[in-house]
């Protein structure tokens, strides 16, 4: 006689054990510490913090460790933790002009006030595997990777910034944003909030369409890097013309400040490392507005240049309605872009197909069988 399958609970417990074995790998090899991940896989940590919407390098590193390096899983872990935290209030808007720079470049101007600072970047490394690292040693420093500088003979292009030798160590030195300089001359629009209402919070309220720009930027900031990259890329390939220039990309530490209700003055509660990208886009003007440049904006935690550049492209393309441009491409469709940008949502729903669907499948089976039987009747009648 048939006995219905039991044992979901036992199977889950075994699965936990196997998962732990998989995570740990060969026990003959030393375990990774959370501190090692935080320090040595810092760009992974930065991505997990950005898309996990929680600035906590230690917990992000823990999540990466727990997820065996699966960054989307790590992002999910961090989000599930974040949801239990109370929200204290809104910080004062970050002033990214007051910044302890790690890196700053402009592709629009050769010289900019405050100077350009190449900083750490993979851009001018030759992508050669550094076998010194494979030998478990420190990098010899002889490779372009290790020296972090353009190798001799590389063709200089106008976008290669001049390298500054002295990094500004002074925290909160004021480095004016290039956009502000352009705006002063009227060459660049300065978008203003449409109303004085405080920005919404999409972690508390569902995203409804049409969304305002503040909400759109929130959704993009926690959106999947790969999705934004593909969407941004599509605008460069003719699906919505954006003609972008990387006006400025800066990475560094900025102060986060809060005005507690009971105090009534600003309190510095710590520093955040962020990457900010200001894209400048051509705009031919309309009947109401004179020709001027428009902007797209990207901001993310830590070192996140690819993400913020893509974000800025997508932010700009999503402003189509506001700027009176025809909406013709996917990257201009706010609902399409934002509804599918969250990888925790996307990954969950795609993978839920693993769950049993046999009740629904049975319903389909019954239907197809019935339709086939009806079809057979039809053939018989015709014969």
């Amino acid at each position, binding site marked *: *006689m048939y006995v*219905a399958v039991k044992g979901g609970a036992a199977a889950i417990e075994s699965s936990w054990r196997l998962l732990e074995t998989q995570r740990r790998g060969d026990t003959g090899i030393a375990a990774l510490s959370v501190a090692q991940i935080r320090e040595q896989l810092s760009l992974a940590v930065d991505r997990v913090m950005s898309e996990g919407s929680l600035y906590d390098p230690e917990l992000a590193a823990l999540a990466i460790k727990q997820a065996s390096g699966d960054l989307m899983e790590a992002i999910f872990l961090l989000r599930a933790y974040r949801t239990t935290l109370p929200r204290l209030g809104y910080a004062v808007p970050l002033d990214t002009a007051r910044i302890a720079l790690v890196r700053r470049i402009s592709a629009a101007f050769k010289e900019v006030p405050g100077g350009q600072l190449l900083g750490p970047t993979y851009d001018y490394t030759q992508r050669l595997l550094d076998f010194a690292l494979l030998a478990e040693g420190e990098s010899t420093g002889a490779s372009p990777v290790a020296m972090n500088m353009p190798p001799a003979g590389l063709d200089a292009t106008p976008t290669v910034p001049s390298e500054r030798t002295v990094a500004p160590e002074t925290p909160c030195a004021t480095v004016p944003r290039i956009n502000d300089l352009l705006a002063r001359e009227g060459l660049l629009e300065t978008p203003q909030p449409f109303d004085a209402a405080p920005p919404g919070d999409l972690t508390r309220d*569902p995203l409804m369409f049409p969304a305002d720009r503040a909400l759109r930027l929130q959704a993009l900031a926690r959106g999947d890097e790969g999705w934004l990259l593909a969407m941004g890329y599509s605008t460069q390939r003719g699906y919505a013309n954006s003609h972008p220039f990387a006006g400025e990309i800066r990475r560094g530490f900025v102060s986060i400040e809060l005005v507690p209700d009971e105090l009534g003055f600003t309190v510095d509660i710590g520093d955040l490392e962020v990457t900010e990208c200001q894209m400048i886009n051509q705009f031919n003007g309309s009947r109401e507005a004179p020709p001027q440049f428009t902007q797209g904006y990207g901001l993310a935690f830590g070192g996140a240049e690819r993400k913020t550049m893509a974000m800025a492209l997508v932010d700009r393309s999503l402003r189509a309605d506001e700027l009176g441009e025809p909406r013709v491409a996917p990257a201009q469709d706010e609902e399409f872009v934002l509804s599918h940008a969250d990888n925790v949502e996307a990954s969950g729903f795609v993978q839920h197909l693993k*769950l049993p669907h*046999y009740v*629904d499948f049975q319903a389909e089976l019954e239907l197809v069988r019935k339709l086939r*039987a009806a079809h057979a009747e039809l053939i018989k009648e015709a014969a």
Partner: protein
Amino acid sequence: MMDTHYNFAFLDERTKKRIRRALLKAVAVPGYQVPFGSREMPFAYGWGTGGVQITASLIGLSDVLKVIDQGADDTTNAVNIRRFFARTTGVTTTEKTREATLIQTRHRIPEMPLTESQILVYQVPMPEPMSRLEPSRRETIKMHALSEYGLMHVRLYEDIAQLGAISRAYDYPVMVNERYLMSPSPIPKFDNPKMHMNPALQLFGAGREKRLYAIPPYTQVRSLDFEDHPFEVQRWDHACALCGASESYLDEMIVDDAGSRLFVCSDSDYCEERRDAGHVGTQQAVTLHDALATPPEAVTPNEQEAA
């Protein structure tokens, strides 16, 4: 044993309160999708986060919780969710439909009639019944506001014109209180009639899509149909092989290499209760035939299914 690292039922009290407020609105406007501030849960989206948030915001110490997936209490996802609540609330859990005060379900409504003292919480993947016809929520919100459901009727009509039958076997659209078109979640249409005038409160949660909706007790729920093509539910040529029930929804299992099928109740508690009461099925697997491969009159009892 309750895990004290988290608040009772994981969510903080303010979040629960917000969800309950959204639920009150949902109950006041039956079938209307209420947007709510869905939180990330320690479950993946698409795995029941909406239902889990409703259950978390309603559950109290005196509740008795039952969780089913595909009608059964022992499917892995049901086990996982039940354990989550056992761990974060310490409440009693049960597999018996009649003992439960709160039942969270995915894809089924229990066979046993529910009572006024029970709440049924559905996990919903796609709350918008017209999502496959009109992907933009901006548009569908307008269509609901205007009761503009022609699109759906045309779709069902086209099915009949092309196939001779409506091709929706599950997630079959319903009208609630003759006002809002509603997705019943992917329950088989077999279960649709159970929603109509049900004494229990029925709540629906879609976590990823951030919508809640409700059918209050004793509310009219009508499955869409046409006068000349009335709504009908699935029927089987077989009874449950274990308990002999002929009125329940059946799961089909392939039990040998020849493809023999065993039909058993999808509702494991219902089946067990019937067996305890002395009902016995045939205990036999059956052979199915391809209606198109062999002329029906030429079939001999031992012939195996082609293909």
